[in-house]
């Protein structure tokens, strides 16, 4: 392993073009071709080797400070890094440890927690999953009921989490739990870290409509978690969880997914000779312009991040337009496939194979996760339009 290289390179000192070239070259040379632009979440067995490769290179945590093994990238450089990932279609590895737990511990954890967990995340030894949603707490997350009761040096946790992405591959879970039932709903919540091998934790994968098992239910039955596993203060978990929604929110609004879907629609249109059909060309062009204009809106928020400004609640617009544009593209793809629009997998067309349904299936959770689009509209109505509640 070559961890010293990571801590001694000052990436921010490079000019943007050289940095971009360096990153691009590495991705193009080393990212496994079979996993480019995956249309589903990859399992650890598939993408784990890439995580370890990044770790070895010292690139697994681009946003973390160098003292914790990160690249210490400035916002501007981080955006370049992510743009290059997206450009090459680099798949997302299970990255909750990198994007959530690391920043959480760096900002709100204690020295012992940082010393224990951070190196193991960097090394790929700990794979984290997120225990937020519950069967009765989705959009209304603060109504969560999983409970942690103090018992000596431990908390005893009981409850159930759901929609936990790739819990079956995780070694650890971070949990929002209720530690004070008498307090108002946002105020009695704490943030806990738990080892998935702790007795009482059971994981059951959920098969989705696309036939894959991207997320799981996690049952917690008398799970003993040491009191030292709390992050931040008791009953202050909600504040921490909210603070974690940093500028990563912007990436829910990246135009990349829609650009990819537009290319699939264009390909299908060409294979089916539809560019001779004015009706199709009109629909296609409208969507092509939506994708282009999404890029302009995205660019505006990216500029804000590059200037080091904090993103306001108006960034929710980006998530709305990105996911709804993606969804309209998925609809058009199913539509042009006509009688093959109900056939899963690849359909052979003149000139190549087209998958009618994967985009459609992917578009369904996109408008739900990360705060459903209805919740995003509530946020915009209250915070930007200042409409009364």
């Amino acid at each position, binding site marked *: 392993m070559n961890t010293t290289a990571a801590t001694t390179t000052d990436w921010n000192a490079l000019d943007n073009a050289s940095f971009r070239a360096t990153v691009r070259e590495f991705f193009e040379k080393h990212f496994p071709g079979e996993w480019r632009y995956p249309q589903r979440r990859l399992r650890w067995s598939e993408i784990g080797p890439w995580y370890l490769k990044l770790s070895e290179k010292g690139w697994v945590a681009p946003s973390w400070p160098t003292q914790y093994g990160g690249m210490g990238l400035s916002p501007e450089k981080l955006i370049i890094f992510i743009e290059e990932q997206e450009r090459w279609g680099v798949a997302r590895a299970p990255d909750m440890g990198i994007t959530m737990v690391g920043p959480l511990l760096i900002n709100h954890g204690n020295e012992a927690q940082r010393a224990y967990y951070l190196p193991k995340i960097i090394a790929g030894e700990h794979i984290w999953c997120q225990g937020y949603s519950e069967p009765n707490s989705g959009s209304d997350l603060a109504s969560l009921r999983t409970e942690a009761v103090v018992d000596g040096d431990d908390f005893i946790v009981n409850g159930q989490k759901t929609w936990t992405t790739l819990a079956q591959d995780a070694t650890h879970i971070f949990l929002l739990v209720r530690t004070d039932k008498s307090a108002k709903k946002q105020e009695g919540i704490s943030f806990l870290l738990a080892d998935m091998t702790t007795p009482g934790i059971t994981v059951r994968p959920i098969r989705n409509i696309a036939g894959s098992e991207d997320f799981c239910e996690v049952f917690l039955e008398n799970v003993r978690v040491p009191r030292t596993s709390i992050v931040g203060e008791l009953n202050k978990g909600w504040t921490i969880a909210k603070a974690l929604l940093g500028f990563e929110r912007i990436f829910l609004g990246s135009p990349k997914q829609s650009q990819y879907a537009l290319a699939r629609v264009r390909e299908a249109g060409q294979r089916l000779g539809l560019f001779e059909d004015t009706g199709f060309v*009109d629909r296609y*062009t*409208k969507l092509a312009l939506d994708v282009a204009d*999404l890029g302009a809106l995205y660019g505006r928020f990216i500029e804000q991040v590059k200037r080091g400004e904090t993103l306001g609640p108006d960034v929710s*617009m980006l998530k709305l337009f990105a996911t709804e544009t993606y969804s309209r593209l998925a609809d058009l793809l199913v539509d042009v496939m006509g009688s093959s629009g109900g056939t899963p997998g690849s359909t052979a067309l003149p000139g190549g194979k087209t998958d009618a349904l994967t985009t459609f299936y992917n578009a369904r959770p996109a408008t739900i996760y990360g705060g459903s689009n209805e919740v995003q*509209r509530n946020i915009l*109505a209250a915070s930007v*339009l200042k*409409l*009364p509640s």
Partner: protein
Amino acid sequence: MTTTHDSERAEQLTLLRESALSFAAKASPLHRARALRQQTPGFDRQFWAALAEQGWTGLLVSEKMGGYEQGFAEMAEVVAALATQVAPEPVVPVLVFAGRLLAHAVPSDLATRLLTEMAEGRTLPAVAWQEDITGAKDRTDQAATRLERQADALLLNGSKRHVRPGAGADGYIVSATGPGGLALVWVPADTADLTVTSQPLADGSYAAQLDFNNVRLPASHLLAEGPNAVAALTRAYDETLVSTSVELLALVRGMLSMTQDYLRTRVQFGKPIGTFQSLQHRAVDLLLQQELTASIVTQALALLDSPDSDASARSAMASRVKSRASDAGLQVAREAVQLHGAIGVTDEYDLGLYLQRALVLAAWLGNGSQQRRRYADLTQNATEQEHA
């Protein structure tokens, strides 16, 4: 270095915005726009003189011709401020469309003279290029109107439509097909055998139909010919599409802001109607269209102001922004009326002023669907290359 330049320019733009907004609010309250509706020519020549006094009629004109040689971003501040007050003066049709067309036709002596007079606020030229009733068949590189050369004279036959301003213009830059290909010809409004028929538009202003029946003009009235004429008309057209989008964006902002206020204050069932989630979500969709339009307008203005922008990129961007702005204008207008309820359909309520102007501007020079067709044609080759 560019950063200092950029921040200086941003500061100047802010100053210009503030002064334009305060001028427009003071000199052009909404009741002025209301009073000028259907009163030929549909705008106020004295107000135009006041714009000239501000220096705004010469904003885009080169210094040699008495102008200030500013960019489209500067012009946009003035255009937006006036559109915010639904001012009826034909700022974009005259100063951008005709003004830029003349600028692209320079070094013609006549163009130079007309531009100088336009910058002073004395002459209002208009562009007459469309011939099709829906505009769907109009192209900037062709015209059915015929130009013949006879000894020292030019002879013009044909018809033009959708000319703005439809009344009050001092003359027209007319596109026609002649022996040298596409030609641009200056036709003063008082030329014999020219018939100008003003048609009322939804906002109380006018568009004109021009009929040329053996109209004779001196040879010196030929402004440009051949590829130069096509390039000049196409470029001015694209610049006008972007500037019209600036107007539409200002109207969108005005309508959404009125709607927000109404949702906050109108009480039904014992609470402000803005508390109802279904209405909140509809208002958010309008906000999204506003901000999308704003993002693209900013990009398009930057492209027009960039010295090395190429013609096809400019055309694609212009059609793209006009398509978004036209559709956003109409969507926000419709929804603003619905969210207001019955008051929204009354003539005495000011929302109607915005809606009617949005109808006119969304349709002018090609609506959303037509601009998307143009965009598709312009980008088809690029798409094919990308795919190959």
